[in-house]
């Protein structure tokens, strides 16, 4: 097993919500990230997936201290980053870089490509003048940009090329860890593969560790060694990419995987689709117990009352779900569903939309025990 690069313990990032003009008071908190614990190993790509609003970007930003977390620890090189004051954190930021989603919004339109890529070198006083220029040209070469374009401005480049500029900037001070926040989702399909291949090559060449954040499960599965699945600020499941796909333990992972269409009609015909009902609840007012219980096809009374612990179910396979204690429930519900599908086919599904409405747990658990 590779060495641990980062240890994240009980990471929480809450954003306060204020009301009132004269007397501003905190009325609520958005629990964007609510108690995550996991390790990131040296040289791996850890994929982080989840739907919009589940807190995956916030997680990435809190780890590299772009947000200062509300609570918890991020241990890097034996130091807890969350405790460090800004002046002590600064030298460590060299090692922790980020690639952003929007290749248009993340590059200053008034700076030349050369200045953009040289910026981290200046900030960390690594190189200046001719040396900086040479380093920038080297970096441009590495990411597949023509070094002659050093004086051009971002608007003169296509989306894919801009993303290469962002990658060159992230590589400038030879980081060890890069948070890649949806680095390909703004790009056209034919360009996405170019960027993913580049990222893989760079990882091998410079022994980089990635946290690859994306909503596209297929892309994450392709590029990652391990995959973490988030739901509503909590970690649902974390395992090797193969385990996640072949043997998802969390009902949310199971549904997520079944919902991703596969570009092969033959495969599509044989796949069982689990269509989750309703929408993701608001992180302002997350459900009690397991945050997923309002949409979970297997939920029973315990799920609404007790928060499941994030535990190792198999070697290297972590999951937060009460089904681990009672695996038979899943089979029984599936059996009951299979019998009911023929009736259900006649009338379209009527999902419950409003997150505030009480979950139809009671009804379901009866079905289970019957």
């Amino acid at each position, binding site marked *: 097993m590779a060495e641990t690069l980062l240890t994240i313990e009980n990471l929480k990032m809450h954003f306060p919500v204020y009301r009132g003009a004269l007397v501003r008071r905190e009325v609520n908190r958005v629990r964007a990230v609510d108690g995550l614990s996991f390790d990131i190993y040296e040289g791996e790509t850890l994929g982080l997936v989840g*739907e919009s609003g589940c807190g995956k970007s916030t997680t990435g930003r809190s780890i590299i201290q772009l947000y200062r977390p509300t609570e918890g620890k991020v241990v890097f090189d034996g130091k807890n980053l969350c405790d460090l004051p800004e002046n002590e954190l600064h030298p460590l930021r060299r090692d922790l870089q980020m690639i952003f989603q929007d290749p248009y919004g993340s590059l200053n339109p008034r700076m030349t490509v050369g200045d953009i890529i040289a910026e981290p070198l200046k900030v960390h006083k690594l190189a200046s003048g001719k040396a900086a220029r040479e380093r920038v040209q080297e970096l441009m070469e590495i990411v597949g940009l023509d070094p002659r374009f050093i004086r051009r401005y971002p608007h003169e480049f296509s989306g894919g090329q801009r993303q290469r500029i962002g990658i060159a900037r992230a590589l400038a001070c030879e980081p060890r860890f890069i948070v890649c926040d949806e680095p390909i989702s703004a790009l056209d399909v*034919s360009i996405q593969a170019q960027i993913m291949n580049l990222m893989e090559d760079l990882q091998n060449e410079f022994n980089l560790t990635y946290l690859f954040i994306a909503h596209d499960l297929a892309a994450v599965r392709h590029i990652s060694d391990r995959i973490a699945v988030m739901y509503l600020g909590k970690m649902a499941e974390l395992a090797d990419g193969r385990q996640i796909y072949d043997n998802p333990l969390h009902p949310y992972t199971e549904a997520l995987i079944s919902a991703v269409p596969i570009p092969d009609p033959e*495969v599509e015909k044989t796949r069982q689709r689990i269509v989750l009902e309703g929408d993701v609840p608001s992180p302002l007012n997350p459900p009690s117990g397991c945050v997923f219980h309002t949409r979970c096809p297997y939920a029973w009374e315990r799920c609404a009352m007790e928060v499941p612990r994030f535990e190792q179910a198999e070697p290297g396979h972590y999951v937060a779900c009460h089904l681990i204690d009672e695996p038979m429930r899943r089979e029984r519900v599936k059996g009951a569903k299979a019998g009911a599908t023929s009736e259900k086919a006649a009338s379209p599904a009527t999902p419950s939309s409003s997150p505030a409405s009480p979950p139809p747990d009671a009804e379901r658990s009866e079905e289970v025990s019957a």
Partner: protein
Amino acid sequence: MKSDDTSRTEHADDVLLKVRDLKTYFDTDDGEVRAVDGVSFEIKRGECVGVVGESGSGKSVCQISILGLIPSPPGRIAGGEVTFDGRDLLGASKKQLRSIRGNEISMIWQDPMSSLNPFLKISRQLIEPLQTHQGLSKEEAREKAIAMLEKVGIPGPRERIDQYPHQFSGGMRQRVMIAMALLCEPKLLIADEPTTALDVTIQAQILELIKDLRRDLGTSVIVITHDLGVVAGMADRIIVMYAGRVMEVTAADKLFESPGHPYTVGLLKSVPRLDRGHEERLIPIEGRPPDTSKPIPGCPFAPRCAWAVSKCTRERPPLFEVAPGHRSACWRASEVYQARLGSKATTARVTRVEELAGRGSINESMLAELDAEGRS
């Protein structure tokens, strides 16, 4: 030269929409952009057709042109014919078009927030088309709208019909859009990236809904998407577009089994698949899409194509029929088709075939040799 249409022995009655040589150009400062450049296809009654392409491929503009919704200027229809249910749409008056749009042809847009009026209650937006197109009274229309909301899976439709769009979530708003599109029981539903703005679990809900409704109502559906996966599970036929042109048309399973155009092969091999691990490397399509404001004399994909020969940059390939109902706009279509580079082909095999293709023409014996090599 063109091998499309005429020879086909379809009953005219089966064809709901027929588009021939459609050209939509936009006059811009950079010159004339040929967003749609000679597109022909047809949609049969009850059929679901996927239109696949990247941004800028003209897949949306093509459908918007059919509806007569191209803003003019700068856009204009520079040529072609569109026949819907026996009627000419391009020559139709505004009044005629208005009686067809939202009534016989409906559209679902990508972004449900900006296509619903935020100032009006859902009820008003749903009732209006029924009153204009079908002459129903307000009460009848309201009842029908409530029934439709229920059909698309909105709980408590009687209460929710009096809410405003912002009170609905993204997935629910898309359901409202679908309800609105289906109210007048259209013959054709055009869905432009209906799930791109939605999360994957919500996408699954919406796709299932469109499939169910299509089965129940017998509506023809055109799904415009950049995601081959979306159409793999629901389309009967697929049209692949690139740079304003049709690259390939065929039955969905044939497209994935044995694509006839190098661009389709590129799309299949550059997209990661959830059921494949990360052992297999992606084959990116090098370069980027062409600038459609400059005239392209040959095949627009030629500069990025491993199969390209000198003819490709000079002469525009027509749609060749490589198998019954399977047409591809490539000078080497039958070679590409024979090579079976569909979703089952491994990266290694595709790379080898493309290497060989770069050197000269490919025949059956070469492929057999290659496969024997691969097995040993």
